[in-house]
């Protein structure tokens, strides 16, 4: 329970009729979705359908014009909201990793807990090393991002996000920039996280992964959610022709 009376039996992330435009370009046209604590939700859809925009609205990297987004019951787009407090609760991993190139892997993981949470250095370092071990990067603590492969960089980025102890993790096509061989090592890491009960919202094109892991799949097209459901129903008995066409192209 937190200050707003949010309890884990209510959605940890909830979007209601979210509208978002960039200038005159309408990107999200009424998106609603609920994610419960511990759930894994995958968002799939054609490129340009607004998946990244949707996920970026959840941690207020983008603002919205209409509707409501709550995280643990707190309205994300309330002008009075402390954005920093929100971002401590929501971790985000990007397609291009976006590690800080002038810092080692260990420093990348340690920076936010030190500077933002103002934790004690020893404790932060101990935890950072444990997180890097967890994503199987023992021995790479002192490597700079430029010395790591894409898959390794992406796992550092995941560890960096986890170091803030978020309640929700957002993944935006985190394997899309990787070589096929390294995709798996990142997916395994995410799978382990989900197995531990982390709430995950993923934009992905890895259909096998979505089918195996997701509690629910949302299909977006042109700024609306066309269809959603558990993987079995979604992949095998999609109702909407747009979903069926997309699936036939990608599978």
């Amino acid at each position, binding site marked *: 329970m937190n200050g707003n009376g949010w309890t884990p039996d209510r959605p940890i992330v909830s979007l209601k009729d979210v509208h978002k435009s960039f200038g005159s370009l309408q990107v999200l046209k009424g998106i609603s979705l609920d994610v419960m604590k511990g759930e894994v939700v995958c968002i799939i859809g054609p490129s340009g359908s607004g998946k990244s925009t949707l996920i970026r609205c959840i*941690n207020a*990297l983008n603002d919205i014009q209409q509707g409501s987004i709550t995280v643990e019951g707190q309205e994300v787009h309330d002008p009075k909201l402390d*954005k*920093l*407090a929100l*971002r*401590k609760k*929501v*971790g*985000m991993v*990007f397609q*291009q990793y*976006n*590690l*800080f*190139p*002038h810092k080692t892997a260990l420093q990348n993981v340690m*920076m*936010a807990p030190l*500077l*933002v949470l103002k934790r004690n250095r020893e404790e932060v370092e101990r935890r950072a090393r444990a997180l890097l071990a967890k994503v199987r990067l023992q021995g790479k603590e002192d490597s700079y991002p430029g010395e790591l492969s894409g898959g390794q960089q992406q796992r550092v980025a995941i560890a*960096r*996000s986890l170091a*803030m102890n978020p309640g929700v993790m957002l993944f935006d096509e985190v394997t899309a920039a990787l070589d096929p061989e390294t995709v798996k090592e990142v997916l395994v890491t995410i799978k382990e996280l989900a197995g531990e009960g982390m709430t995950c919202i993923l934009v992905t094109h890895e259909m096998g992964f979505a089918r195996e892991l997701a509690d629910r799949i949302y299909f977006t097209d042109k700024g609306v959610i066309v269809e959603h459901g558990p993987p079995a129903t979604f992949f095998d008995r999609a109702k909407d022709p747009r979903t069926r066409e997309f699936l036939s192209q990608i599978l």
Partner: protein
Amino acid sequence: MPKAIPGLTAAARTDLPVLHSHKALYAAASPIGFSRWLAGLPLWFPLMLAAAAAVWPLTAGAQSGSGESIAGAFETLLRWIPFLLFDGFTFTVLIGAATMLVGTLLGVFLGLGQISIHPAIAKLSYFLTQIFRNSPWLVLLFIVMLSFPFELNIGGLIIPVPDWIKAVIGLSLPIMANISEIVRGAVNSVPSAQWEAAESLAFTRQQTLWRIVLPQCIKRMIPPWMNWYAILTMATPIVSILGVEEVLNLTRQAIEAENNRPVLLIPFYSFVLLIFFLYCYPIARWTVRLERRFAVKL
């Protein structure tokens, strides 16, 4: 003859303009253009200066009929060299260093102002930057020289403001504006994804700027900063107009002390040119080398 590409039977030819090597009609403005030019000067350039200094007394001597020898002119120069170097050029270097220090401090401040999220601060900083970047240096110098008092009265304590201090203030204004542009350009060269990554980790804007963005672009600022130091050093002789006793002023005084013999003009001023060249040339070479290194690394 087009080269064959393995695996292709036809010769490699293309009509696609994007595949043709790009030939720029004019060189793009480089942030270290001056250093590139200076570093590219051939080494016979200083030799030519020395030769000019040597030949002149001959012809001048022949014209005036005074028959003064080359040896005589050089002997005079030799006598003055310690004075020109240690009194004159040292002061030139001091003015340059002080100007760079003041200009850099103010410039970093103004550059950060340009990227402020407060529109009023950003606009004002942009305006000041453009004004001082595009004003003639001599005009700025005159304004400072004439508008500053020759002494400051701070609560009864009289502090004299010598001319060279005013010269430093005057010269540091254009340096400030150019450093401001260097800072703005460097910060903008860091991908916005870095800002977003830091933002999503709940860094404040200040933390992002000082811990993430600036450390990444500080290296990129060094070559253009050194370039401005070389430009500034070459420009310091203009303060001699205002009576500051740097190397050019002392050279003129030295020639006067030698009764303004025309035979001395070229050897003395060539010598001054040579000192500037010998001082700035290695800096320029170093600047070009650093820029190449940082460009590869980042």
